[in-house]
């Protein structure tokens, strides 16, 4: 799996990949970082605020990924840096590889036996996550994930939230109680369920179930939360609640979200990456991508001409 040594096998490809990439770290962002005093006036939830500050949490370098032992690459030469405590959105038409990429970040793709990284590497908090000495289990405790279809276990609400802690061997009731309350409060669900913690999680509405899944994820205190189209199965009201929650969570967590809804990306994300056919077309601050895209494909996609 660990293919970091092969990063340099095709230098031209790497170069071209980087050429397309809207230089993730320094150059294009410089003009956006205007006068800090000016940004103070912006709305609190404005996405450009602090957009490019903070240290890098996830560093993807020249990543190529294959689902079939390297015959065809689903992801090609992706390089991008995801900053800490911000919301980064991945957008793009179906099949562009955004979900694949997000599943690479906590090695969920290990479940697919034939999958492998053909070049490049991913560093989270400076550590190559495909290194031999990295345990996927420990990684996933730090990089949690919320799935497209909300999938609470058919257990009580309490048991769902406590699940992650219980499998870590925590049995003390006071610790669990405290963690469940904190997580549910963080997930803005506490007031709705505090009287029925022992009821089945399946009795909740769809939006509540998805927020429960988020609570379940944050209960283990990860550093990063990956969200794979978290609102695609929810109605607009539930979606609004989840989005509100995400904006709260970005204070404490680094959030990566895959979404099909461009409005959602523009509403909640600080940075946006646009993928097309397994390649990263453009990556930059959300305002920049939505107002002044560099690539033609990005412009076409966000203006609804395809995708």
């Amino acid at each position, binding site marked *: 799996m660990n293919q970091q040594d092969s990063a340099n096998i095709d230098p031209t490809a790497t170069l071209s990949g980087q050429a397309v990439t809207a230089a993730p770290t320094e150059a294009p962002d410089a003009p956006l970082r205007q006068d800090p005093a000016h940004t103070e006036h912006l709305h609190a939830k404005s996405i450009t605020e602090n957009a490019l500050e903070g240290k890098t949490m996830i560093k993807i370098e020249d990543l190529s990924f294959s689902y079939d032992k390297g015959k065809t690459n689903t992801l090609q030469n992706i390089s991008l840096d995801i900053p800490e405590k911000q919301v980064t959105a991945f957008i793009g038409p179906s099949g562009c590889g955004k979900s694949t990429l997000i599943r690479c970040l*906590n090695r*969920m793709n290990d*479940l697919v*036996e034939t999958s492998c990284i053909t070049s490049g590497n991913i560093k989270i908090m400076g550590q190559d996550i495909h290194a031999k000495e990295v345990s996927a*289990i*420990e990684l*996933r*405790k730090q990089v*949690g*994930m919320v*799935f497209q*279809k909300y*999938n*609470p*276990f*058919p257990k009580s609400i309490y048991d769902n939230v406590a*699940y*992650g802690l*219980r*499998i*870590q061997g925590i049995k003390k009731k006071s610790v669990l109680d405290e963690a469940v309350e904190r997580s549910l409060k963080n997930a803005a669900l506490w007031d709705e369920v505090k009287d029925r913690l022992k009821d089945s999680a*399946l009795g909740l509405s769809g939006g509540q179930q998805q927020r429960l*899944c988020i609570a*379940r*994820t944050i209960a*283990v205190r990860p550093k990063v939360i990956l969200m794979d189209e978290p609102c695609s199965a929810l109605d607009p009201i539930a979606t609004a609640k989840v989005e509100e929650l995400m904006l709260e969570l970005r204070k404490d967590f680094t959030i990566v979200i895959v979404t099909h809804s461009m409005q959602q990306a523009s509403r909640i994300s600080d940075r946006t990456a646009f993928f097309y056919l397994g390649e990263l077309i453009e990556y930059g601050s959300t305002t920049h991508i939505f107002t002044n895209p560099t690539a033609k494909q990005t412009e076409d996609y966000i203006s609804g001409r395809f995708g």
Partner: protein
Amino acid sequence: MGSSNNPFSKQRNSEHIKETLVKLTFIVFTYLIIFAALGIFGKIIYEGAPVLWQKGWSFFTKKPQTLFVNQVEKGEGIEIPAQNFDGLLANNPDADKWLTNVTEFEKTTEFIKFDLLSGSRIGSGYLGELESLNADVYVLYTERDTDAAVGFQLQAEKKISMQQSDYVALTKADHKLLPAETPERTVNLSDFELTIAAGEYPIGKDAHDALVPTELVFQMRQTFADDEPDKINLTLIPHEQTITVSADIYYAAFDEEERGTLPVKSEQEVPVSRTFHDFTLAAGSYITKPEALSILGKYGIQHQHDPLKGSIVLNKNITGLIVPKDFWGILTQANPSLKTANQSTVTADTAYIRFDISKDTEILLDTEDRESIASANEATGKFVTTSEQTHSYSGGGVIGPIIGTGLLVIICMLVALFTGIAASIFLNEYARAGGFVKTIRLAMLNLAGVPSIVFGLFGLGLFVILAPCVTSTPKTSSAMMVPLVKLGSKPELRVCEQQHIYICEKSNLSSSELTTIATANGSKLVYDGWIWLSLQGWGTSILAGGFTLAMMVLPVIITSCEESLSAVPMGFREASLALGASKWQSIRTAVLPYAFPGILTASVLGITRVAGETAPIMFTAAVAEKSELPWEGLNSTGFDKFLDFLQSSAQALPYHIYTVAGRIPQSEYTQPMQYGSVLVFMLIVMSFAAISIWLRARVRNKIKW
């Protein structure tokens, strides 16, 4: 209304008729099945329910026994223990026609309570009787005494004509026993010198029994079953032999006029003259030497000593023995060197029933009731039977087979579920798709189609004959023996005698030398101080049967477990893994609990299938008749007892039905047992099906996603 303006008017064409025909066929066949099923079940319930009603609870709590059909003369004041009276009523629904004057009364029996002291000498038969009267007593002795005096009792005087050779030996052993003067007479008889050619011959049981004590070397192809007295089996005479036999053996085994005797190539009468001594032994008690008793035993003197092996020497005190007073008399007279202490008389009241039989009639009794009524009226002689007919397995109830089937199912399901769930988890969760897994799946599909008799033979070969055992007394027939550690504890003398263990003093012999020596000494087991890993099989046992059934049901269990595992949404596994669970943690906490209903249903259905199988247990676990439940009659203690229990055979319900329905002659007397057993079996299977439906509904309601 004309059809012209109805665009949807019915069209009568051949398509329509075809449709109706097809529908009709389906209806007819569906109802045919239902009616056939109703017919079969109806017949079983119609015939079986009255049996259960009449025999009541005792049908479930009694072991299968032989049924005695007695022609009984009318009589008065017949006594029977109250508990057996219920059995009598259950077996004879027409009892009200001949049963009169039924009165209940208490019969007081006297018992002797005593302690048996260490150093006593006791005959093996008497010790056995003592143990059967006192359930928790089992004596492990280490020594026998061939010199201890033995006693016997004659109820009436006994005339004996004794052959010269025996007479000489007897007087030498104990010259005081016989009267001083014994008239001699000489008789001319003829022996037969016979030559038997090599070959295979069909012989009957009588001929076989007569041939056993002779010098003839022969080998039976098949043993004689007790339930088929008239069967003829093949015997092999390996080479031509000439033997001399006395007249009685000649007429039993070689008389060509009768069926099932051995043909002779040539025969010659050899006149012999024998001298006999005639004497009479008066009634009373005698005390003599064991050698003398062993000779007298040949002339019909009843005793329960084992004169050749000697009396058993007790090396421990046994306290609190209780025996009936009459047995106490026999015991003390027959064992003159018995040391007892603390004798006291205790009395116990038993409920008895006294009744009259108003006319000559036919009474059905099972073995237990027959024995107790006979012994209760032995003294008065009021219970007179003019003729008696027996029907094997047709009396009593079905507790033995039910327990046996239950144990087989439990062992089978433990093995099958453990292996099956493990295998299905591996196949569904861990194994990478590929040629290997495909081969396993294909093999499993094929395994599901293997006829059950083949599984029976497989189990016979693997579990009964070849399975590994760790033991200090390996069988001489073991396929392979590997010594492990030299830690064996020497088996007690009694165990050695019972199980034919050869004790080898040298401990440096190889396994083949050991088995050769032991076989030459006629032993089946061998002990030399080592603990062996021996490929000797588990014998015909519930363990072997359970494993065989498990093999048979495994494909079904694995397939359905896999189905229920893959029915658990992938999302649960992902969610669990994403929370930092290891693979096994996620399977244990997020997959198995939700696959549980399916696994449960599969196992209950597996149980119904396993409980009904006959063929796999025929060779591996089931016996047609066994008077003890599997855990009864085991003399070991602790963990050894558990092992012995696992290695004991049992009756099983399907095999019992096969026996009563197929192996014994059908008659009005055997019918109740047949229908009763089938109905009980059907009820069990149906209740399992009902449980499975109920469980599935219940658990499904609880766990939903």
